[in-house]
């Protein structure tokens, strides 16, 4: 191939008045977008290699760098956009599936931004969370249909519950897809704030066993790293059926990422590809799922809640109902904007449904069937801020899962190149030169700060509504009004329009 039809995506601008040729950018870019010219004694940039991760921009001590969209214009065409054409150039060259990382970035409507929250005025008092107690405590797990009480004591044990100080958990990201330092950061942050982190499907590294009481371990189709100790160490077990970024698709961790630590943790040979099949080959029906749920409960002596995680797809309400009846204690639903370390681009951008609809549909269905109490609902798939969480709780969620926002708190700049293994922020990589860029002390502090900040904001919004416990907001859709939505959308969300 003599020429490459793909022009650079980004332009690196170097302010010559500020650049001191210190080469920090050269040393920090794993994509080799900056290089030192010995003869000229100065730094040059290779625009074509830049993925716009901002590592050099943030590290540059004199703020001499800016990254811009490459200024090359294509002839205006509303149909054949630059993205559409560039994808074809790339595929014409490689003959391969287009890969990407992180969540769906297409301009689909974001329904969180079409819902507004209520506040108290005159007829009911608002509450100041700085002066009055405010309860965010959340228990996840199956709740009994009724309580048998005799002489002030419960006659039957409550099924196992997860106790959360904030209604936010870190969702599943495997060791392999992200670095051990990222896992250490999440685990320590979860412990600090009183919530849980999730191992993802790649097993639990031996250094993190001490955080077991704040760990949700995942059992996915590849069964990596699963043994009796793994299950017993954890606070809860999650069966992963699907992932919002790539519903219906399995996973593939390339052999080059399977180093000594990943290989031991996943219990697979060094340097071999770790392939998670698309389905669990022992689950082809709700009845099969029930068998796995009860095998896991049996293995852990019915002491730990079992979560079943699915992607939000068209029939999500009926599927969730089946999962509850199969014995799950918690159903986790991942919306179509959920992130990933690697997914086929077309699947990521075109498969699944928004989490807002999935949540409303599932909560409504479970209530109609009278089984909502049998399960807790956890939703994820692009929870971007605390008001998204408040809206999710009002729509019917018990808690939320965050992953992308947690990674952003630790430095991710959403360049969507996780699948290359060259994450300059030390998150989505196993390269020892890069993983040490994430100091888990700093990562844990920043992720914990995010949760604390959001908890404060949730308290403020609750107080404004005159509510002093999150429990009172749960499923209280009267606290929501839709804006800019059709009747059909309002109907599915089960909320009134603003002004009604």
């Amino acid at each position, binding site marked *: 191939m003599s020429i490459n039809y793909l022009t650079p995506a980004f332009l690196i601008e170097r302010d010559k*008045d*500020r650049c*001191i*040729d*210190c*080469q*920090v950018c050269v*040393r*920090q870019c794993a994509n080799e977008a900056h290089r030192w010219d010995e003869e000229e004694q100065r730094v040059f940039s290779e625009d074509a290699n830049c993925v716009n991760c901002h590592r050099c921009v943030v*590290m540059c*001590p*004199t703020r001499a760098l800016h990254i811009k969209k490459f200024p090359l214009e294509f002839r205006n065409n509303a149909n054949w956009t630059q993205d559409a054409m560039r994808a074809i150039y790339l595929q014409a060259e490689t003959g391969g599936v287009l890969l990407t990382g992180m969540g769906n970035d297409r301009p689909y409507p974001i329904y969180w931004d079409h819902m507004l929250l209520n506040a108290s005025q005159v007829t009911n008092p608002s509450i100041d969370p700085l002066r009055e107690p405010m309860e965010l405590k959340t228990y996840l797990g199956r709740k009994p249909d009724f309580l048998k009480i005799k002489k002030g004591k419960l006659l039957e044990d409550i099924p196992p519950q997860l106790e959360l100080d904030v209604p936010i958990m870190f969702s599943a990201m495997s060791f392999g897809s992200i670095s051990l330092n990222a896992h250490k950061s999440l685990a320590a942050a979860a412990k600090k704030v009183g919530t849980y982190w999730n191992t993802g499907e790649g097993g639990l590294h031996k250094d993190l066993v001490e955080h077991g009481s704040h760990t949700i371990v995942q059992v996915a189709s590849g069964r990596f790293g699963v043994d009796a100790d793994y299950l017993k160490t954890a606070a809860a077990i999650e069966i992963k059926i699907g992932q919002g970024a790539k519903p219906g698709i399995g996973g593939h961790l390339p052999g080059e990422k399977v180093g000594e630590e990943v290989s031991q943790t996943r219990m697979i040979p060094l340097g071999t590809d770790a392939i998670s099949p698309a389905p669990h080959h022992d689950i082809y029906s709700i009845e099969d799922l029930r068998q796995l749920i009860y095998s896991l409960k049996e293995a852990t002596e019915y002491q730990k809640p079992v979560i079943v995680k699915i992607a939000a797809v068209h029939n999500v309400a009926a599927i969730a109902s089946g999962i509850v009846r199969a014995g799950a204690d918690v159903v986790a639903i991942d919306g179509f904007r959920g992130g990933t370390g690697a997914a086929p681009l077309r699947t990521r951008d075109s498969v699944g449904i928004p989490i807002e609809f999935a949540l409303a549909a599932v909560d409504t269905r479970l209530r109609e069937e009278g089984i909502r109490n049998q399960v807790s609902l956890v939703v994820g798939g692009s929870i971007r801020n605390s008001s998204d969480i408040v809206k999710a709780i009002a729509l019917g969620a018990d808690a939320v899962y965050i992953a992308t926002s947690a990674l952003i708190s630790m430095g991710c700049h959403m360049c969507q190149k996780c699948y290359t293994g060259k994450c300059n922020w030390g998150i989505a990589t196993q*390269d*020892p*030169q890069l993983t*040490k*860029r994430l*100091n888990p*002390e*700093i990562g844990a502090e920043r992720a914990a700060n995010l949760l604390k900040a959001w908890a404060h904001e949730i308290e403020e919004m609750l107080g404004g509504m005159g509510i002093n416990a999150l429990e009172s907001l749960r499923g209280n859709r009267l606290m929501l009004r839709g804006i800019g939505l059709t009747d059909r959308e309002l109907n599915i969300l089960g909320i009134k329009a603003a002004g009604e």
Partner: protein
Amino acid sequence: MKRVYAREEYCVGCKLCEIYCIAAHSKYKNDLVKTFKKEAKPPISRILVEESRPVSFALQCRHCEDAPCTKACIVGAMHKDPETGIVTNAEDRCVGCWTCVLVCPFGAITRDERGHKVASKCDLCSDNGQIPACVEHCPNRALVYSEYESNNGKK
């Protein structure tokens, strides 16, 4: 005494410590752009990042209890402050004989031959009366300024 300790597991090899060290000892104190653009010969970094990828760490004078350089110095320029414990070189008296360079067990003294030949070494930014510039600007807390070794608690 407080010393700078390196935590190599978090050193990203960016060498920002060297850059800020240079600026801290320039006549345009802490102004990076002026230090590198206007100084005819910017100072030599007194901290050195040793690197053999993926391992890297920053090394500077350990301010030894029983500093060999102070004993080796033929003109008494190298001295240890009895109160602070900081080892500094009185550059006006230094004759550039490099005996200190020879005896330093850490290789933490370098030759500064930009003008009057002097031995260049870490002074823990003692002029500033604050935490050393390298520690302050390390982006990943790979340098700590403390009484004790961070990893195993040894002095």
